[in-house]
């Protein structure tokens, strides 16, 4: 959907138009080029080849002896070998591939001796895991955010003081304080008390992840309340009159007439809100949830590839938000045809 300020065309000359397009790319290369030049000037060593292992890597499995003892038997088991070891902690059998050990039957072992070391399967790296956590948290928080927002939005436009004022108080309180502070309160205040109560009743305590999801849902929900309210108020009152005059109840009218129509108006601001949610999830690293940002930080402490990993981190967030905004644009086009 191309929307112009007016139909009067500037740059009617095709050459001027092409020059203008070229100008864009020149600008783009200048920005990227100057950043690259600056990093080279400070002697930064770009090592992009080190990056893939943060997504997927081949794990190494190392088996250690658990106590003093000796190798009992080494027996072939299909393509592998069974090594049975008896130590002072008991008898154990390890199944390992050929050529990954250097023992004969009767050898003595001490605790910490390497029994075998071989390559395991492919494993997701720290960034892949972080990406997964970010996606999972954002997805769950989005669903709860929508639920809270719709309930709150419907309450916000009602005439009943208990509903209306609760919704208003919720929105004002949540919008008036920083998300980081709210995350801290959810984890350190609510989390501590709730976990204690859960433990006292013999229920296992909740993960930090769940408190993070709660904080994000409640935060996003407050903004969605206002979006839903604006959507509901954008519906022509005639729609309500038509529905109510045919005998529908308030809630039938709300869920069959108003909300389906409001959805079209609220979709674009809603998408913006959920893009913010994905980005805001980066704050959850503060309560030791290993999402993408925290995973990147941890990756850097081991690799020291600061530039590559932070740029990559940003690109990954960009991919997520861009995909989401594409999906919403598709939805918008579908609802617009009606």
């Amino acid at each position, binding site marked *: 959907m191309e929307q112009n300020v007016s139909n009067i065309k500037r740059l009617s000359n095709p050459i001027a138009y092409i020059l203008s397009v070229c100008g864009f790319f020149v600008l783009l290369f200048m920005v990227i080029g100057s950043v690259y030049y600056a990093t080279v000037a400070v002697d930064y060593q770009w090592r992009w080849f080190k990056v893939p292992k943060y997504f997927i890597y081949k794990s190494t499995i190392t088996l250690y002896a658990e106590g003093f003892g000796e190798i009992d038997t080494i027996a072939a088991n299909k393509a592998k070998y069974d090594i049975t070891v008896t130590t002072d902690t008991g008898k154990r059998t390890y199944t390992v591939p050929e050529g990954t050990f250097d023992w004969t039957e009767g050898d003595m072992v001490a605790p910490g001796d390497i029994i075998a070391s071989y390559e395991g399967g492919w494993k997701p790296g720290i960034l892949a895991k972080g990406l997964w956590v970010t996606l999972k948290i954002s997805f769950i928080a989005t669903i709860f955010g929508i639920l809270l927002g719709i309930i709150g939005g419907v309450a916000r436009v009602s005439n009943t003081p208990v509903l209306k004022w609760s919704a208003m108080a919720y929105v004002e309180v949540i919008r008036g304080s920083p998300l980081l502070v709210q995350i801290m309160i959810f984890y350190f205040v609510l989390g501590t008390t709730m976990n204690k109560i859960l433990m006292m009743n013999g229920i296992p305590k909740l993960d930090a992840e769940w408190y993070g999801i709660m904080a994000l849902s409640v935060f996003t929900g407050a903004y969605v309340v206002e979006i839903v309210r604006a959507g509901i108020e954008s519906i022509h009152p005639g729609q309500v*009159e*038509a529905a109510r*005059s*045919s005998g*529908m109840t308030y809630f039938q009218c709300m869920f*069959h*007439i108003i909300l*389906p*129509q409001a959805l079209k108006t609220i979709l674009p601001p809603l998408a913006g809100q959920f893009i913010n949610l994905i980005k805001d999830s980066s704050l959850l690293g503060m309560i030791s949830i290993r999402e993408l940002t925290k995973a990147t930080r941890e990756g850097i402490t081991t690799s020291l590839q600061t530039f590559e990993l932070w740029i990559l981190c940003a690109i990954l967030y960009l991919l997520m938000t861009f995909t989401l905004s594409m999906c919403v644009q598709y939805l918008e086009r579908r609802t617009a045809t009606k």
Partner: protein
Amino acid sequence: MIDVISIYKTFYVPHEVKALVDVSNKIEAGEVVVVIGPSGSGKSTFLRCLNRLETAERGQILVDGVDIFDPKTNINTVRAEMGMVFQSFNLYPHLTVQGNVGLAQKLVRKRPKKEREEKTRMLLEKVGISAKAKAWPSNLSGGQQQRVAIARALAMDPKIMLFDEPTSALDPEMIGEVLEVMKTLAKEGMTMVCVTHEMGFAREVADRVIFMDEGMIVEEGTPEKFYKNPTHDRTKLFLKQIL
């Protein structure tokens, strides 16, 4: 059937306007009543009070003996018996023509799907629009939309139909088709209250014409008497202006 007993209504926003002042009237079953009057005379407010889209601040309205302003009255059951047609059609834009006619049947009358579809088909045929059953309201002309709106109101099998200037928003060439449907309804014996300036319609089917001005019923009578020999000066002036 409808008993209006001395109702008052004042609007305070944007400024104080006395919309209804001591309005009383009695509408019998099977009667077709046409309400006319200059803009701001309270005729729409009067109509909207009949199914409590507006609440009067004083007075009573009894529909089949039920006081509709009584907080204990379940207004939804009263409204289900009163179909309403609006000036701006107010079709649900997110539903097809079928969906528009079928929704309240499903939610309010709890009719099974089969029965609903049958009723919808029959009504669309009646208003002459069965070919457009699967169309979206935005693809229909004003006249077609208003006919769907009438079918939607009729789907509830109402005892009374309220029309709030049903032809005022239509292009001139589409007024006829809507009036035709309304005339058929009137001849079938439907109780109707119509706010409209269509004199032809009033002359042909109305039993009574009510003229309102400044929130009061100034004059009422049969169409012949009303249009030919109005007694009140205000009525004479108004009729001179619209004719």
